[in-house]
């Protein structure tokens, strides 16, 4: 998504942003800025989302009815849109998470077969 060069940070794989958003919203409804901050913070600032790209993703999720949006007030009394995980989104998160686990497992197995064998 991002064309900007990021030296130390890792660019997000397509589709993983959706997963991260869903995971973040599992903790409770919040607004866009807070989601961006949470993703950065929880990944120890390794995953740096270009904050703008959050919004197309949020809208995509709304369209798929995985999350819903409502008006709310932020911690410093600003009106903002709050996003909430729907039941459908919750189910989707479970599916996506297990898919991701499988994918990540498979990729790391290919990349470091010896280590894996050694560890196990």
């Amino acid at each position: 998504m991002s064309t900007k060069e990021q030296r130390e940070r890792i660019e997000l794989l397509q589709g993983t942003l959706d997963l991260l958003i869903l995971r973040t919203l599992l903790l409770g409804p919040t607004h866009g800025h807070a989601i961006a901050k949470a993703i950065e913070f929880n990944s120890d600032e390794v995953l740096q989302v270009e904050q703008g790209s959050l919004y197309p993703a949020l809208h995509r999720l709304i369209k798929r009815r995985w999350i819903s949006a409502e008006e709310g007030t932020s911690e410093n009394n600003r009106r903002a849109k709050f996003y909430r995980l729907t039941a459908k989104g919750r189910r989707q998160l479970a599916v996506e998470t297990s898919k991701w686990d499988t994918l990540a497992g498979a990729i790391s197995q290919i990349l470091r077969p010896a280590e894996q064998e050694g560890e196990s």
Partner: protein
Amino acid sequence: MKRRERMMDDLNRDIREHIEMETQDNIDRGMAPEEARYAAVRKFGNVTRVKEDTREVWSFAWLEQLGQDIRYALRMLRKAPGFTAVAVLTIALGIGATTAIFSLVDATLLHPLPYSQPEQLVRVEDDLPGVGAQDVGMSVPEWHDLQRSGIFEYVSLAVYGPVNLTGSSQPTRARYSGVAPNYFALLGVKPQLGRTFDPEDQTPGFTLEVLISDGLWKRAFAADPGILGKSLRLDNDLYTVIGVMPAGFHDPGRTTEQRNIEVWAAVGFAVPGRTPPLRNRRRTGAAAIARIKPGLTIAAAQSQLDALVASLQKEFPEDYPLQSAWTVRLVPLKETVVGKARQSLILLLGAVGLVLLIGCVNVANLLLARASARGRELAVRQALGAARKRLISQLLTEGLLLSLVGGLAGLAILLCARGFLVRLVPDSLPHLNDISISWGVLLFALGASLVAGAIFGVTPALHAGRADLTQALKQEGRGSTGSREQGRTRRVLVVTEFALSLVLMIAAGLLLRSFWDLLNVSLGFNPQNVMAVRTWLPEPNDPKTDIYGTPAQEAPFIRELLRRGRTLPGVEEIALGNRASIPLNHNPTQSPLVLEGREIQSKQPPLVETSSVTPDYFHLLGVTLQRGRLFGEMDNETAPAVAVINEAFARTYWPSGDPLGERLKLSPEDSSWTTVVGVIADARTESLVESSVPQIYTSLYQAPSQGASKELVIFLRGRLDPAATPVELREQVQAVNPELPVFGAQTLNDALSASLSERRFSMEMVGLFALTALLLAGLGIYGVISYIVSERTHEIGIRLALGAQSRNILRMVLRQGLGLAIAGAAVGLVCALILSHLMAGLLYGVRPTDPVTFAGVALLLIGVALLACYIPARRAIRVDPLVALRHE
């Protein structure tokens, strides 16, 4: 769409808030406000792109893809103007013709009749199946019974006939109908000016009030807005105009003449001071129409009516003898108006639909040829990751675009040619609604275009993406990807085209043969050089003022007319007759026949076609006498009444005996008998199609024209000037009585051809469609064979280089074309055998499986195929081996 806008508004605010928050965070972390804001914006990224990406989330992807496909398709079509022009023109003609025919079908068959709640309207027909008589007319007491029955909201009677309209510059005839006062209330039509008759009016006789049609109002009264209350003289009686019907209002009559009634008068169907009308005295030629009570279906009304009929039969056994088996039938009014035309129209629609289909097949063929030329392009796109679905939708879009453009062009052609086309439609085609390009018709055109586009778009689309990619990409330049499979499809398409064309041509061939047979049918009379001119003796309401009321009054007038007519230039023979005596007039006058010695059987007398003529009539028409004698001048108003019958009449009523000298009555009320004095050969004077309709002729001197037969027809034979003779005759007629109109001059040849107008129309149309189909099929096979030849140029070059005779090459190419044509013809013959039975009712003299037509058409089609293949075949043998070999 609204949601999308709202989401985008929210997004703008969210982005603003987001950057604000980030800025605040940065400030909290100790940045200077300006720096903090800059960092926040940078961290957010490209705002415009974020918005665009988000907008895309909410857009309809398929819609945008469609837009893309359309843009691309337009570009492709523009790049191949020749192909586009041919395809669009084919579709335009197909859609245009189909839509034109559909607009006819729409106006006649699909549109409800232009009356209020037309589905409740029925015609009431009295049948006497026991004596083989249908629709014998209703008697006045029966009419009253029906009105009281509780089945109908209204029942109305109408009688038709022309009247003399005097008072304008030239006495003219107007088409007139005497109707029961509830007629217009029944139809539920309001006049454009004034009022209609009071449905409760019980006035006996005539009410002396008339309604006039919009046409007559404009023609005779220059659309005078003050027409209401003005007087009009009809047959010497003064009537007051009380209303003008709206333009486009037609009487629901069965014939063209009845549908174009110009004057309606209210008739009470009862005469004061006379005995009430008899139950078995049927008003022949009267039409009874009725409006069924709301909520009642026609079937339910019919069963209630059957019960009523049964009880009436019990109540009046004298009037309804069992052997006549009197029944009353309800026929949907629409059926009686359009009934006969339905089959022809459906045939036309079917024929034109076939042309459209053939056109589609042709365009599919063209598209396929192009698709094979575009094989590389498609393969490259596929290799780059285009989904097969996208390629198919791309090709379908191209097809649909082509058909829509073609459809629009077709509509444009149709709208331009509309006036001309409407004039082609014969008057006799029943349509109470104007033929117009209505929304329904437009919708049909759109639907037809889409279906057509789908048909020819889907063929190449099915092939798309099935090609072997590696092969396609390896081939240089003009790829022939999937050529084997596509070649097979193209051949199948050509075979289909030939089969469809053959079906259409056989239909046209059968119609043509029917028409030809009808033209060459032995008429039994000679229409050459005969002209019929009409006049009309007025029939005032008060019999005392009728100056032609009795034979003694009318006969001298007839003799004077004959004497004066004979002096006209060019006239060799002259005769007079009543209206029914005009050959092929489709207005038969029927009279109840009572035979001497069989009076009891004649309680419900059979109806026979009756004409009254002067003695020279038979000679003038060239009808041959078989037995007895014809009329002479001695059979005048003072002599005993005599009649001449035709052979069919003799066969029907005296199957074993000699009719000469037998006596009969043509009205149960007649006091004296009429003696049969002669038998003439059957002639097709009633209908070209029927050879033997029983007919009886009486002497005009003895049976003065009466009722609907007040019309007098003057027959002239000789070297006549069709323009001058009627004028000269008018002078002579009006020298005797200046009040008489002279009108309707027509040569018998014209009458003959007019009686064929509907058949001619469908024959010409189907013929035209068949020719188009033939042309398209020829083009189709030409295309395929050319393609095969160009594909095999290399091979042919090698063959020629190795010494093949050009004759052999020619034969090789022609054999391929011939194979396709024969396969198509075979399939077509089978289809035609199955389908042609459906048109049996439209044929005359040929069977639907006429082997001559079938064989002839098949040969013609194969001949055209050979011709179409010959051109590319010639090209094949002219191949220069050197060039061909270098072709690689």
